[in-house]
């Protein structure tokens, strides 16, 4: 008699763990940096990619990602799932996303609290949603579907926004906390988004952070922003990812790390991309803050013992 032991996970999902990513700083991975990164050899840190850029069948993008993944933890950051949209998720897109998770076994998987598709149109931007009982239900259903499909929890990122909705019945932090409680997803805290949104809506970033469920944060994003002005001539910050992290955002990051302890932290830089040493230096600055917090925690433990 033979006893067959079957795994519930589909055959395309190898049960293989990613290297630990603990209190590491990382950067966006850009193809123009590939040669410089490989020339340096394996280094401390992780790399994050936009999932959609690797949804082609083959060729150079996959070859580059395989080379990076061989020596470094990877973070897979989805940009187009439209989790915040009222319509059903695009199953074809979700299947492609699942395929990438299975193939590259990323240490982190994340998506946005936003929408980018409606009916048949794709808008290539992270669009805002009202925070209501109805959108709460849609967002939770969509996250459940993603997590069931890829068979692991995702991290949900807080948005940067420029407008609000009169129909909203709850604050963004309440909405996000409730979604995490309901779906079991983790959170990606984008501190630049907090700063941008707080400025644009006239509240204090620290208040938002005080309301944010920091214990559920599994990754932090830091990025640069640009400044424009609104119709009244007041500052309107744009989440542009095209420059260094602002001093105010670094300050908020230090405060969050003091409260939360070290969390994987990414420097996002997606346009006007600098040479690799510039991006690497930004990550080193984040790493120094993470390492200081780690050393302080270890020292506290010793004193307590």
């Amino acid at each position, binding site marked *: 008699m033979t006893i067959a032991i079957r795994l519930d996970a589909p055959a395309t999902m190898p049960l293989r763990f990613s290297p630990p990513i603990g209190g590491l700083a990382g950067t966006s991975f850009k193809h123009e940096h590939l040669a410089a990164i490989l020339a340096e050899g394996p280094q401390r840190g992780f790399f994050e990619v936009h999932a*959609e*850029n690797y*949804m*082609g*069948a*083959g*060729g*150079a*993008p*996959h*070859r580059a990602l395989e080379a990076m993944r061989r020596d470094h933890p990877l973070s897979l950051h989805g*940009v*187009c799932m*439209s989790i915040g*949209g*009222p*319509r059903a998720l*695009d199953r074809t*897109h979700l299947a492609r996303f699942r395929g990438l998770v299975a193939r590259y076994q990323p240490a982190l998987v994340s998506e946005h609290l936003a*929408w*980018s*598709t*409606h*009916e*048949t*149109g*794709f*808008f*290539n*931007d992270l*669009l*805002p*949603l*009202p925070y*209501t009982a*109805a*959108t709460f*239900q*849609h967002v939770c259903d969509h996250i459940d579907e993603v997590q069931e499909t890829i068979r692991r929890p995702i991290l949900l990122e807080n948005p940067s926004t*420029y*407008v*609000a*909705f*009169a*129909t909203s019945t709850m604050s963004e932090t309440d909405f996000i906390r409730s979604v995490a409680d309901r779906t079991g997803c983790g959170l990606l805290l984008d501190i630049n988004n907090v700063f941008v949104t707080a400025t*644009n*809506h*006239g509240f204090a970033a620290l208040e938002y952070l005080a309301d944010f469920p920091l214990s559920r944060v599994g990754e932090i994003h830091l990025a640069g922003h640009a400044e*424009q*002005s*609104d*119709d*009244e001539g*007041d500052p*309107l910050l*744009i989440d542009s990812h095209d420059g260094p992290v602002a001093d105010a955002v670094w300050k908020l990051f230090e405060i969050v790390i003091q409260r939360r302890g070290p969390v994987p932290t990414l420097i996002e830089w997606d346009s006007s991309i600098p040479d690799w040493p510039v991006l690497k230096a930004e990550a080193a600055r984040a790493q120094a803050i993470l390492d200081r917090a780690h050393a302080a925690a270890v020292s506290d433990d010793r004193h307590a013992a």
Partner: protein
Amino acid sequence: MPPEPSTSYAAAIAPALLDPTRAVPTVVIGPNGKATEKRFGVYRNNVTVSLIEALAAIYAAVLRITGNDFFRAMARFYIRSSPPRSPLLFEYGRDFPAFIKRYEYAQSLPWLADVARVERAWLDAYHAADAVPLAPHALARIAPERLASLVFAAHPATRLVRSPYSAVTIFAANRSAEPVGRIDASTPEDALITRPDVEVVVRQLPPGGAIFISCLMAGCPLGEAAAMALKQAPTFDIAANIAGLIEAGAFTSIAPATFGDGR
């Protein structure tokens, strides 16, 4: 019937994103009674500019030829008439060459659409599935009397673009950083695009070469494809062409032709 409240935010916002003549949707508000024109304008700008950038990345030679202002204006018209349907931006702009052909202000550049078709084929080859190309000596092991009945399987990256203009020369000159000299645009050119490993290569085919490979890609036996090529170009060199195509990595395998009985 009015849309249900839970879907109305996306239904209200979506049409206004690409149409600047539409008013800012009333579902959005500014904080503390602030106006929404510039605030909503950020989303409008993000959508249009990011799609223009996507087209500029795909159609880099067209951008260099037309210059930035011309390209952005043309791309803006195109985006409004053909917004993307897929979240994969490397799939976007498949009908941009056809749009360029019709575009009123590009009529003085009749070859521009064909340059765009070469660029589109280049990107498709770049993202195509990986496959090991046919080995250079593959034909050497075939008995001469069986050569004519061979059929070829195209590599997933292989593309053919035919043009009544010098589209390949213009493409190549404008995808490099070098200055572009005068080009006689009136010579018909056919482009073969292949990607045997990771690097995409664009070649110009000799007379008869395009009909030859398009027959082979359609599954015709070698003998039939060669006859078609010779009919069009009496100087067509079969041996040189087949060797050139194999060297370019255009195929992945060969097999004897299958007939009605399966052999």
